[in-house]
Each structure stands twice: as C-alpha cells, then as structure tokens.
C-alpha cells in the first residue's frame, strides 16, 4: 500500500514539474531508454518554431496520456537552439501544459547527430523514432502524423 502511495506521489510530482526541460545528448537519451521501465519509446523530434511539429504535438501528448498504464513513453526532443531553452522552450511547455518528457537536444555537430538517429533522416522536422527495447526493434519516420496514423504505427512496435 505504502509503495502504491509513493508511486502515486511520484506520479503527481512528475506531472507538476514538467516545466523543467533539460538538455540531453544522444548518449543520455540512449541511457534514458535503456534504463527506463517502459518497453516502447516514441521519440519525437520537433521545435517550437516548426509549424507542422506544433500541430502534431497534441497527438503525441494524447498517446502518452492514454498510455499511462502501458509500458509506453513519449519523449519530446526539441531541436530549438540551446540558447532558447529558457526563452522559448520552457514557456511553450508551460503554455501548452505538456505532460510528456521534454528535452532540448544537446549536440553540436548535427551532421553526426542526424545520421546517428537514422541514416535516412534528411534533417527535416518533424521526425519520429519508435523504439522497442524488448524486441530490439526501431522504426524511423520523417513525416507528420495524425492521431490515427500514429496509433497504427506504434501498434506494430508494442
């Protein structure tokens, strides 16, 4: 019972401090995924200045919220400039009440970074990487999603 309460408390705390957006390198993202308790990770690459990204964010939020009891986690990796973390990204997260985990990508060499995420990525945003740590499966999509398209794609990787 105590554990249960602690879990709920942690859950609530987790939800209220989401405005704390941190910088994250790709290595750190890999660790986050490897050490995480979930098995499916939906990693969306976006930016506050990217119109189509902002349009599809609610679908990722909805997926994350509706998967609260499932081993699925949405991670939002912003490609806003690091210098815009406090001026653009955090206010955006607060304004839109984003509950998914948000990070700002902390990589200086995009050439290496883009290829490491996926060889087929041209660098255009939005882009989404789906990982399943159990099945060691990954899928990469350089496109915008509707909610039903997103569900369909994720379904194959659960």
């Amino acid at each position, binding site marked *: 019972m105590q554990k249960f309460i602690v879990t709920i408390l942690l859950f609530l705390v987790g939800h209220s401090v989401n405005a704390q957006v941190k910088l994250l390198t790709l290595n750190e993202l890999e660790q986050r995924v490897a050490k995480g308790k979930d098995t499916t990770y939906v990693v969306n690459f976006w*930016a506050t*200045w*990217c*119109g*189509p990204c902002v349009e599809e964010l609610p679908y990722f939020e909805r997926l994350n919220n509706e998967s609260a009891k499932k081993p699925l986690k949405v991670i939002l990796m912003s*490609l806003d*400039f*690091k*210098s815009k973390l406090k001026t653009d990204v955090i206010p955006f997260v607060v304004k839109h009440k984003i509950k998914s985990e948000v990070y700002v990508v902390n990589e*200086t*060499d*995009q*050439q*290496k970074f*883009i*290829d490491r995420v996926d060889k*087929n*990525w*041209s*660098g*255009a*945003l939005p882009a989404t990487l789906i990982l399943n740590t159990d099945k060691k*499966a990954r*899928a*990469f999509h350089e496109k915008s999603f509707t909610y039903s398209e997103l569900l369909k*794609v994720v*379904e*194959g990787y659960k």
Partner: protein
Amino acid sequence: MKKLLLACLTILLATAVNAQTGYQVGDLASDFNLKNVDGKNVSLAGHKNVKGYIVVFTCNTCPVSKAYEARIEALNKMYASKGYPVVAINTNDPIASPGDTYAKMQERAKEKGFSFAYLEDPDHVYTKKYGAMRTPHVFVLQKTAKGNEVAYIGAIDNDQQEANAQRDNYVQNAVNQLLKGEKPSVTSTKAIGCTIKWKKEVSK
C-alpha cells in the same frame, strides 16, 4: 512479424521514392529565370565570367535560415569575385507563410544589405526540381561544358548555433576544392532545417 515486414517494406518504398526526387551530386541542374528582389529577372546563364554558383534555398521566416543569413552573405562576399556567386531562392508559398511574400523578401534584403540575388519561386517549380527539402539547403553547381553540374548538396557548415569548436565549413571547403580544380571531398551533408511551406493544394 508480417506487420514488421510490411513496415520495413513501406520504409524501403518511401526511401526509394525519396531518392528519386530532386538532384543527386553529378546531375546537371536546370537553369531558371526568376524575379529578384530588385524587380529584375535572374538566371544562371545571365551571370558572365563565372565558374559556378552557390544556390541556396532559404526563406525569411525559418530560424535556422535567419541564423545563417550573415554566413550566406559572407559566402557571396568571399566567392562571387572568385567566380562562385550566391543565388538565393525563397522556397515558401507566400500564402502558406505570410512572412515570405515578395514585399517581405524585398524588405529583408534591404534591411540586411544582401549583396546576392534573392529570388522568388512561385509554385515551388525549382524548389521541387532541385529537390530542396528544408531551409537552408545548398546546391553548389560547377559550370562545365555539359552544363551546370551539381557538385555538393547539403548544409553550409555543421555549426548551426555557432557553438561547435570543430566546425567544418562544408560549402567553403567544396568551393575551395572546385577552385583548385579538384572534386569536393565531402559532397553531401545533412542538417536540421525548416520544412518548406508548400502551397495548399486546391481541391478539385
């Protein structure tokens, strides 16, 4: 398993389709005749005594393009006199992106003192033909007997936020090598950019 296979196939297909659009290094690039911010039309052939061109697909509104404005201007200052002028083309539809109207392009060029041509591309004809996928997206062309051969496609450098100590100036390196009569050692690079603001399809 079937689903996974299907997903793989879809990805493969999508890549195959992608690979067919636009130019690859070695292709001959089409000339154009587009309106510059000074009201006059500009074509590649209209440039006299050049060895090639630095064609930059860009726009007024994208934060990445804005971060590169000064570097695009510097490229023109550095290479126009050596035979590689910058020719910038705005990729965006002015209705889809109101900050990219012809008037706004003129305003920006004046404000920033662009010394290079900044052209509009109505209906994305050349943006599509070249295969620009984001802004900014550079195509370095070398003038040859056969035509304007694509020598480099990609980013200006790998230092978008001017924070990378190991900065590789891809476009400069490519043009420097071309000027020496060599082939560029790096012919294609990637970068994060803004999606192109395409004209909304009119429903039939």
